[in-house]
């Protein structure tokens, strides 16, 4: 029972990450009709916003390290700590939350620049061209990040106060032994908040209504005098922010490296397709569903019956869904069937 509860929690957590990435991908696809293979790279850039914040906050004074005698080595003391003492350390400790403040404008700008500079010219090109050019962009972005930050993962720990685990079991009567990391709970909450925010924006604001209308029928919206293109540009920026926040918040769970975007990319495409191309609800549902299934497949009891199932479960589910429900769980007719 305990372990099943924890695995569900794990799955939701993982699903939260999938759902956020897939949501951004679907927003872009649903509005602009562009299959964006650079989406994973944007996620990675979000993570590196956190790394950059960390680097900025811990920008250090170099002091000669006397303990190393063979060569000139330096100890680093962050200026923030020199200037502000404990307050400085406190700020450094809270770098991940702070980096969201950096990530929002940065990701928005990156998104807008990408749409204006590149994606815009590919609306009327075949999907294959879109895939290829954004794939090329993804490679370029990740190689640039690699040349700046190196190839190894860079740890960006969560604030010390939430570094440990919550004794979640005692809250719901499963006993003290059932614990779950604070940061993962925060991540899950964050994912739910961001997802709700996106849906509320689309559902309850006029701007959102226009975007929804545009996703369904951009021509008619244009015939009503609305410059849907400009709004879609903003949506692209928004999708970048959504996935950027997902990236920032994920850093304490997975130390970011330049390649993490590619690792998520294939998976997020599977999620989007399982959910149904162009369906935002589908992306979220499929994200959580695949997360939970993946989590269960990793249980020893299940692996002992089907060896290797944890390695293929996501793809297996994708195949089954696509064969039984041709347009994914919640897909619409006529999307991407040309």
């Amino acid at each position, binding site marked *: 029972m305990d372990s099943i509860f924890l695995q569900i929690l794990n799955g939701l957590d993982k699903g939260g990450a999938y759902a956020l990435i897939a949501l951004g991908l679907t927003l872009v696809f649903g509005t602009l009709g562009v*299959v964006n293979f650079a989406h994973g790279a944007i996620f990675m850039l979000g993570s590196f916003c956190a790394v950059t914040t960390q680097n900025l906050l811990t920008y250090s004074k170099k002091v000669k390290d006397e303990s190393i005698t063979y060569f000139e080595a330096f100890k680093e003391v962050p200026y923030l700590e020199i200037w502000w003492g404990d307050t400085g350390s406190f700020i450094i400790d809270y770098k991940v939350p702070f980096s969201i403040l950096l990530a929002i404008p940065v990701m928005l700008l990156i998104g807008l620049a990408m749409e204006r500079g*590149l994606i815009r*010219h590919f609306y009327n*090109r075949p*999907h*294959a*061209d879109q895939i*290829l*050019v954004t*794939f*090329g*962009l*993804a*490679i*370029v972005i990740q*190689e*640039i990040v690699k*040349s700046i930050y190196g190839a190894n993962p860079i740890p960006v720990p969560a604030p010390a106060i939430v570094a440990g685990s919550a004794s979640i079991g005692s809250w719901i009567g499963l006993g003290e032994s059932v614990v779950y990391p604070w940061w993962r709970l925060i991540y899950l909450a964050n994912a739910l908040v961001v997802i709700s925010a996106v849906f509320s924006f689309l559902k309850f604001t006029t701007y959102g209504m226009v975007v929804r209308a545009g996703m369904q029928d951009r021509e008619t919206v244009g015939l009503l005098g609305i410059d849907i293109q400009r709004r879609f540009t903003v949506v692209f920026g928004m999708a970048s922010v959504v996935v950027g926040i997902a990236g920032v918040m994920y850093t304490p769970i997975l130390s970011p490296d330049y390649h993490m975007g*590619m690792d998520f990319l*294939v998976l997020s*495409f*599977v999620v989007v*397709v399982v959910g149904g*191309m162009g369906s935002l609800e589908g992306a979220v549902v499929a994200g959580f569903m695949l997360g939970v299934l993946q989590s269960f497949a990793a249980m020893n009891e299940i692996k002992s019956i089907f*060896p*290797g199932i944890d*390695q*293929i479960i996501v*793809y*297996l589910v*994708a*195949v089954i869904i*696509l*064969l039984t429900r*041709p*347009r994914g769980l919640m897909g619409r007719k006529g999307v*991407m*069937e*040309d």
Partner: protein
Amino acid sequence: MDTISRKGELRMMALFAVIVLLMPIWLIPFGAAYPDLLQKFAIFGIFAVGFNILFGLTGYLSFGHAVFLGVGSYAAVWSFKLFTMNVIPAVIFGVLFSGIFAAVIGFVSLRRSGIYFSILTLAFAQMSYNLAYSVLTPITNGETGLQLRLHDLRMIDGLFIEAGEGLPLTNLFGIKMSGYPGFYFCAVLLILAFYLALRIKNSPFGMALKAIKSNQLRMGYTGFNTRPYLMSAFMISGMYAGLAGALLAVTDPLAGAERMQWTASGEVVLMTILGGVGTLFGPLLGAGLIKYFENIFSSYNDALLQETFSFLPDMLNNLMVGIISPFVGDGWHLTLGGLFMVIIIFLPGGIVGGITMVWRRYMKKRGASAEMEGETS
């Protein structure tokens, strides 16, 4: 679309054969004339040409084609291990098994089209890769890759030849298949494969495939059953991939799981589109270019650059090295990514498409009279 006359076809094939067979000579100035890279050019050329039969003709974008490459390799290495070091059975097994795999995967995946088809093939490839890497290790030898061993069975060889002290070499009735002979073996198969692709493209079957590409829906309405055609195209292109995989094992008897990873499937897509999808020579050109980048660009390091620009004064030399070094050596992926973007943005038809465009403009410049003459001759 008009077809080339049979005679023109043969002429073109002759030219093509000469170009391929003389690669060891005309590639010398490019620093690419060594057996391994030449073999890779030929092998990945076959892979890309085969992929083009599916993608270029029918428009079905398979994102899991590398799985057939992997199956071909495994089958070939098993043929070496179990039966004989002769490459003929290995090639046959490679093609056969990848054909069977293609039949199974195609049967399921071709129920869907568009991106759904792509994702289905991708899913199958990733499943195969993950299983080959871990659970199927008894068959695939996991991460290390399937290798030959001294104590392999080699049933047929065992009947005729005394086992030597070292590992036996792959051979074609005694001609060892590494180095230049290996290249010529692959090159001959490339020429044959290319000719077959050409024949397929210009056959009624090829026409039907192209019709599927231009309008699947309408063909469905007219009661024309597209499935058998698509299925055949998928299997043929899978078998091309299997042949390429088997040849990889022939020239270098090792089969690794990473050959099936999605990035490997992506690579062949990139090759095809880079060179020019649907064109005859495009995929070959794309394959050559990517392999050239992978092997030659990655090998440049600062010392080598310094040497290359040593004719310049020191200041300029350092400047040039500084400018270029981020794009070579460990930066070769950056160059590749950048090149893709440039080509896709400015040459939607790939390199061959671009050349065709330039050629057409040139022909226009030469005047309509030449055009007329050409038409009547």
